[in-house]
């Protein structure tokens, strides 16, 4: 009997624990967001986080986007050539990148960089009593450490993805014209004629959500870390893993929402 019940009990505990954690994360996010509407505002800290996300992630995201665009052209050309439909390559590339690959790949790259750095910085502050020190220095740590970072994540990611979109399409165009013999003007015309405003917007909405999630998981894991250097290391790992998985899961949810319309 125990053999049957134990795994069930473990599963139940796991589900309950997961729900409790999700609830705590949601409360944490709501509290931080509420601070965005009450002074004092920490513009300087917002700017610092913004530059960290938007500017310093630029090289990684740019490289990812360019190579993705290049590969996408080769692969789709292989596929479409079998149906004599290579004219659709440009359309496929621009749609995949703006709607899907731009936000998701940029999101995953930023998850690695930013949620790790937020978790490590805030986690170190937690285990060295710096967060308690903020409270004794008349400063709300949620307002000071968390709120500016969440805002920066939601605002900076779409900008980063605009760049990723452009570079991804450029990467595709480069290979299409140089290697596959497409006519440059024709390829670009096919790209832009086909692209709709909604395609770009849906990608940018995704980007904003992903940026928020990355910042949220980074700050939450850091804020709740305990147990010295090892605890901070664990918090960093958890932040990267959970934000990456959440990006992929939310990507499906958001895509389905846009799909339904």
């Amino acid at each position: 009997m125990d053999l049957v019940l134990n795994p069930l009990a473990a599963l139940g505990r796991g589900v309950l624990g997961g729900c409790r954690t999700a609830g705590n994360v949601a409360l944490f996010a709501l509290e931080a967001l509420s601070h965005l509407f009450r002074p004092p505002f920490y513009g300087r800290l917002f700017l610092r986080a913004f530059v960290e996300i938007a500017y310093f992630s630029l090289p990684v995201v740019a490289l990812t986007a360019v190579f993705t665009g290049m590969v996408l052209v080769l692969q789709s050309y292989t596929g479409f050539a079998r149906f004599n439909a290579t004219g659709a390559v440009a359309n496929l590339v621009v749609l995949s990148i703006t709607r899907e690959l731009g936000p998701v790949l940029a999101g995953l790259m930023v998850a690695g960089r930013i949620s790790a750095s937020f978790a490590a910085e805030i986690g170190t502050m937690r285990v060295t009593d710096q967060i308690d020190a903020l409270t004794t220095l008349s400063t709300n740590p949620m307002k000071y450490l968390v709120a500016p970072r969440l805002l920066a994540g939601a605002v900076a990611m779409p900008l980063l993805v605009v760049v990723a979109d452009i570079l991804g399409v450029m990467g595709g165009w480069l290979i299409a014209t140089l290697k596959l013999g497409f006519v440059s003007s024709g390829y670009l015309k096919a790209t832009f004629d086909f692209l709709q405003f909604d395609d770009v917007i849906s990608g940018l909405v995704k980007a904003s959500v992903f940026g928020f999630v990355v910042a949220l998981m980074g700050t939450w894991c850091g804020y709740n870390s305990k147990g010295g250097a090892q605890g901070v290391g664990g918090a960093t790992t958890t932040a990267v893993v959970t934000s990456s998985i959440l990006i992929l899961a939310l990507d499906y949810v958001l895509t389905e929402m846009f799909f339904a319309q």
Partner: protein
Amino acid sequence: MTGPAATPKIRMRGVRKAFGSKQVLDGVDLDVGAGSSMVILGGSGSGKSVTIKCILGLVTPDAGEIEVDGVNVLKLGRRDREALGDRIGMLFQNGALFDSLPVWENVCFKLLAQNRITRAKARDRAAEVLAQVGLAASVGELSPAELSGGMQKRVALARAIAAQPDIIFFDEPTTGLDPIMGAVIDGLIVDCVKKLGATAVSITHDMASARRIGDEAAMIYKGRMVWTGPAATLGHSGNAMVDQFANGEREGPIQMELRR
């Protein structure tokens, strides 16, 4: 207006706090008179830091009362609690300086947070406070990571006193310093507290330091205050536990728990 004897600055009654199954505070009672300097003694892990964190509101007790100026702080709303926090200074055990900010911003952090000073004036103000703890104004431009342990303690002390609090807590201010630097820091603490006319609560397990800083002393053991008395009598107080602790004897009523 009642006298200090009638209304202690800080009054704790039956404060209990457990972390998981571990009962860290098990009914702490403590009175600290206005303007006096109280030293809390006790072994490592006996709950000294948790006691102060309860008064500061960083840890919420499971039970008991904590009064500051006769007001139960555990029942205060958020705003009143913050207003009380504005009048309290704290020096953390490991300094807890913000390593992302230069020293001058650390020192003036609370004044800036309360808008009592502009950023333009903060550097000059930081230089004044740093001078009080024996540091040159140029230290203000450094990052906390560039400072030695003794200098970090001084900066942490400067940060704790910069907003002129009327209650100050010092958590092991001299631990990890050489004896001379320890004596210097003790001297600075006594001077600063006297100048502010503040009430001070210090944690230490250094007897020389306890006698230098404290008017009164209390000893915590197994989650309770087992003794309170004048700091000058430490070592010959007549209480077997306190004397064992003060004189560092291996045999006595206190059994070191190596493992819980």
